[in-house]
């Protein structure tokens, strides 16, 4: 648990600039060496509605947005009305006196009206003054913010910088003179931290992996990957294409990957559905590539700006027929960065498609990184590739056979353009030399041998994976099992449970295919009560675990309202499950956002 743990919520209508003060605060905290986690709850509209950004900071890494707000900044009346009732003793509510009137606050909640119209030159400076007021109450010096304003408005000239600095000072002084500061001062860490969204982390992971070709069709909440790639492509030497549809995306990716580029694409569930035949094609032709599915609430168009872990069975069953694939679900925003080079190395080595199953919670959330954690030159394993250096290698005796039955089932692939190795790759079943088996006779013995080689090569993946993360006492009363993005919130719930005298341990699954069944069984056979926590309706992982290990979890905590779990949702659930009140606990999200 972090010593200092400070959370600010900023609410308003879309288009009102909720993100700006949120981004400034996040970056400012990170610059002062504090860890940050931020999450924006928003809707699929450009103007209006209600968006709510939570920024939480502390000295230790922040794993989720947490349960509690220290400070509320409602930019409009609607936000005040929705969130004020949730504010507790010791918290403060900062708002524009001219636009927002408070309702009834709980005892001990400090109301901090700012007369913004009187304090600053124009409405353009409201956010600046408000951010400065937050800093004053949290005991943060103003100079870091002033330096950021100078950077942010450098292009707009000295006058704009001066106006904003004046607004910041006015807000800072007014808060000091009129409001009670928090009883703590936000500390600063030893060094500046980097801050990035999950989408940016996925894109940067691609850069670290040596991605040379990236293509996508815009689809929330994955579009951030495409936009980051497009902004950085030219300098980094990456070809980035926006394609006409996801059928085009996956097939363009296949073409680029076959020609020799490390190739990545990202989409959400709907786009992924269109890609599924292509993924099977990549597997059939044995072309490595990485496809990211950033899950959002489905089915169909679903709730485009809300999070869910509802695509597990879609990716497990993507496309017709049996085919080899890798599937992994990053467990944190930093893991979005680290996973990509790892899964590329496996995809290249095993010549198969790899699927990364992220979700909106990760992709659009912000988290801090230690700068040296962002290693852009990790080890790279391209697997067996002939012609990658553009040379003219000698073809083997008897001619090159792309799909030769080697002992490990992974014959070297040759890049188009390499002399002496011309061959055909096909989505029809094909023999060792690439000739379609339907062109002669559909030989059942051949087909069997080909299937066994193509599927069997994947058996060597499992020993290469790190074991699934297990934390907490072995003899705990409860074992919480999560997968992918829920790691942070379950960690925090486990700590909260311990404080309440309930011993829990925690198994978090990152590798979906291959599933580390033996390691999982070894852990879970010692569990007294297995509770599976997941962000979907039907318990997709619970069913998968049962199908792959025979383990039938005692109970589950599920959420499918579009918002992520908060720690207390899991704590409350565990208590109810232990009390025997239910075997499936579904928390109700308290705030309608």
């Amino acid at each position, binding site marked *: 648990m972090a010593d200092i743990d400070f959370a600010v919520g900023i609410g308003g209508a879309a288009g009102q600039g909720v993100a700006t003060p949120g981004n400034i605060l996040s970056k400012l905290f*990170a610059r002062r060496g504090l860890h940050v986690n931020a999450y924006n709850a928003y809707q699929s509209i450009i103007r209006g509605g209600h968006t709510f950004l939570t920024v939480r900071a502390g000295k230790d890494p922040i794993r989720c947005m947490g349960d509690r707000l220290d400070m509320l900044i409602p930019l409009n009346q609607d936000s005040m009305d929705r969130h004020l009732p949730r504010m507790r003793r010791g918290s403060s509510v900062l708002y524009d006196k001219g636009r927002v009137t408070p309702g009834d606050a709980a005892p001990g909640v400090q109301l901090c009206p700012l007369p913004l119209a009187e304090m600053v030159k124009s409405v353009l400076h409201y956010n600046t003054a408000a951010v400065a007021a937050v800093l004053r109450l949290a005991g943060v010096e103003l100079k870091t913010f002033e330096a950021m304003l100078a950077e942010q408005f450098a292009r707009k000239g000295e006058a704009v910088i001066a106006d904003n600095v004046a607004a910041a000072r006015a807000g800072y002084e007014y808060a000091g003179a009129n409001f009670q500061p928090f009883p703590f001062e936000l500390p600063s860490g030893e060094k500046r931290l980097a801050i990035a969204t999950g989408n940016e982390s996925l894109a940067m992971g691609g850069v670290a992996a040596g991605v040379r070709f990236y293509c996508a069709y815009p689809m929330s909440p994955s579009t951030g990957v495409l936009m980051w790639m497009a902004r950085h492509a030219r300098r980094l030497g990456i070809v980035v294409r926006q394609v006409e549809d996801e059928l085009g995306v996956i*097939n363009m990716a296949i073409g680029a990957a076959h*020609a020799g580029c490390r*190739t990545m694409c990202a989409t959400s569930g709907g786009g992924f559905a269109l890609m599924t035949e*292509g993924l099977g094609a990549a597997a059939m032709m044995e072309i490595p590539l990485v496809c990211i599915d950033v899950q959002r609430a489905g089915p169909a168009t679903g709730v485009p700006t809300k999070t869910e872990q509802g695509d597990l069975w879609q990716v497990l069953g993507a496309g017709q027929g049996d085919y080899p694939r890798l599937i992994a679900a990053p467990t944190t925003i930093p893991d979005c960065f680290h996973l990509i080079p790892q899964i590329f190395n496996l995809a290249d080595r095993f010549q198969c498609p790899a699927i990364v199953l992220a979700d909106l919670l990760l992709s659009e959330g912000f988290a801090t990184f230690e*700068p040296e954690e962002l290693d852009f030159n990790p080890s790279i394993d391209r697997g067996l590739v002939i012609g990658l250096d553009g040379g003219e290698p000698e073809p083997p005796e008897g001619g090159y056979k792309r799909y030769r039955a080697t002992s490990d089932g992974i014959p070297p692939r040759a890049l188009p*353009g390499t002399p002496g190795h011309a061959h055909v*790759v096909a*989505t029809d079943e094909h023999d060792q030399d690439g000739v379609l088996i339907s062109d002669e006779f559909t030989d059942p013995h051949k087909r069997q041998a080909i299937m066994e080689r193509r599927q069997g090569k994947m058996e060597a993946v499992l020993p290469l994976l790190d074991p699934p993360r297990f934390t907490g006492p072995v003899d705990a009363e409860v074992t919480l099992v999560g997968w992918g993005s829920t790691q942070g919130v379950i960690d925090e719930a486990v700590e909260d449970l311990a404080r309440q005298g309930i011993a829990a341990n925690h198994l978090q699954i990152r590798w979906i295919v291959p599933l580390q069944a033996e390691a999982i069984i070894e852990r879970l056979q010692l569990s007294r009560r297995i509770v599976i926590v997941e962000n979907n309706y039907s318990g997709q992982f619970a069913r998968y675990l049962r199908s792959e290990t025979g383990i039938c979890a005692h109970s589950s905590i599920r959420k499918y309202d579009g918002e992520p779990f908060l720690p207390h949702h899991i704590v409350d659930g565990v208590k109810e499950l232990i009390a025997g009140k239910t075997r499936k606990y579904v928390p109700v999200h308290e705030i309608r956002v």
Partner: protein
Amino acid sequence: MGELRVDTSFPLDRKPRRPSLPVKEFKGKADPDWCPGCGDFGVLNALKIALSELGLQPHDVLTISGIGCSSNLPGYINTYGMHTLHGRALAVATGAQLANHKLKVVVTGGDGDGFGIGGNHFLHVMRRNVDLAYLVMDNQIYGLTTGQLSPTSRRGMKTKTTPEGSVEDPVNPIPMAIACGATYVARGYSGNQKHLVGLIKGAIEHRGFAFVDVFSPCVTYNKDNTHDFFKERTKKLEDLGHDPTDFHAALDRAREWDETIPIGLFYKRDAPALDECEPVLASGGPLALRPPGVSAGDARWILDELM
């Protein structure tokens, strides 16, 4: 304009012309499984002759197809080949061409593959002017699925799925291609091989998206658009005095479908190909062959944004 003129000079960054390999060197590992008399034989032969006459080696060329009778072609020719999914050849080819812009990428397929299930990619590959040679073996019928309506089947045509005759107008891919921004638009007939070889050579050498719609009769399932049908009607544009740089004349000629059906080069213009417009490809050679690794300066640049 009495004679078909095609630009046979390689772009400067392409591999120089080499002594021609004999046509037989382009024979693929498998023999065609097309029905005897199928128009696709003529297209395959014309393509092999074109590659040979252009001095290309098997490894210089990547032949990409979708699914259908004609899409089996990559297996019958000795080049690098990709036999992809139904309708997706142009998307795959775009990725491959950008990943290695030194390759000559030839895309082959049928009318259903290209104008039906793959129609959206056709549209977009043209406006992007991707450097591909796209040869469609247009037989106005679905052959591999045994004789159903195709996007190019004429109104009134009786097929297994239109037993009373089709009530839909067909796609005319030539004016569509001219209007959508294709920079080389031609029509050939598989029964006129010498003429077709010229069109295919022009398409392969054209820098940008080159489209050749080839009448390739299905002798098994299409009793309307037969060899006799095309032999009687097809007339070479060069004999009709057509100027392939005239956009409007090209559109007018492309809509002729009567006693005379023109074949030849309808339209050609110079425009930068997609890879020429991509700054990342301006120097450094084929993308696919560039080594991985991020320079310390670039890593710092990325990191600084996050701080």
